[in-house]
């Protein structure tokens, strides 16, 4: 569908541009397009989360970092041929593996056979709430959600541990020969 082609174009632009501010703005557009794609694929909760988190918080954090680091990337000399070869081989292997997957969207895929119908049928009699995703998240699989809350608290503690001490003098600097190289 059209949105996936748009995503590929925006993704290529993000990788190829060397100005990090442009890459950040394109990344925000990318995240918002993915949120739209999730709405088309019938995932309401996930679209809301991706729009809020990807296009909101991730972008603002990268912009806050770009206020503290230089915002241009060094020019790469030549193309890195072994890396392109590795990427192509991995991509080809994945395409071969994907050909075994069942057809997209068919209702008798193995994915929809075991636990899916149980959740769809049993949520209202067990809990009385219409949102199946919230019921699974908070009641049927609530230990996973506890683990996830602890993960985000740990990330907050890690950022606090890294950034709460005020900076001292820089320990060393790259020399002028490196910094004077042509940026283009």
């Amino acid at each position, binding site marked *: *569908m059209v949105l*996936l*082609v748009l*995503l*590929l174009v925006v*993704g290529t632009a*993000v*990788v190829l541009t060397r100005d*990090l501010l442009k890459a950040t703005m394109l*990344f925000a557009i*990318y995240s918002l397009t*993915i949120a739209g794609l999730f709405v088309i*694929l*019938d*995932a*309401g*909760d*996930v679209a809301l*989360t*991706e729009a809020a*988190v*990807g296009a909101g918080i*991730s972008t603002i954090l*990268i912009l806050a*970092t*770009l206020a503290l680091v230089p915002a241009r*990337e*060094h020019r*790469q000399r030549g193309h*890195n041929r072994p890396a*392109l070869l590795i*990427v192509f081989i*991995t*991509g080809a292997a*994945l*395409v071969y593996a*994907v050909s075994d*997957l069942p*057809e997209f*969207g*068919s*209702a008798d895929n193995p*994915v*929809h056979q075991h636990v*899916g119908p149980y*959740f769809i049928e049993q949520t209202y009699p067990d809990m009385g709430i*219409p*949102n*199946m*995703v919230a019921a*699974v*998240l908070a009641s049927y699989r609530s230990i996973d*959600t506890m683990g*996830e809350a602890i993960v985000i608290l740990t*990330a907050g503690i890690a950022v606090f541990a*890294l950034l709460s001490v005020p900076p001292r003098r*820089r320990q060393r600097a*790259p020399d002028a020969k*490196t*910094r004077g190289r042509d940026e283009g």
Partner: protein
Amino acid sequence: MSALSLFNYWAVIGLMMLGYYCVIVRGNMVKKIIGLGIFQTSVFILFISAGKVLGGSTPILREGVSVYSNPLPHVLILTAIVVGVATTAVGLALAVRIQEAFGSINDDDLDQLGQEDEP
């Protein structure tokens, strides 16, 4: 028609390889973190596409809808999105500290400083 029904997955592979290339080839740390974000979101599209039922609708019970999409992949991806932003935040904090300690976040400058250390 059976080849076209896998188009979603091929697009996912394309995006995944873009993110992979960005992580292993680009030298700037912030660019690597952006590439990691592209990789993660492509995996989310893979899971959500696997959970979709054609003719179904969002998994919230309401009148007039009889076929729902599978709610289980949505739950997994909700957790994964939040963990992804946690990883991004810690990575960016590390990049800020490296910039302050060494003056640069590009690979070639850091290699230069590493070679100066060796006798």
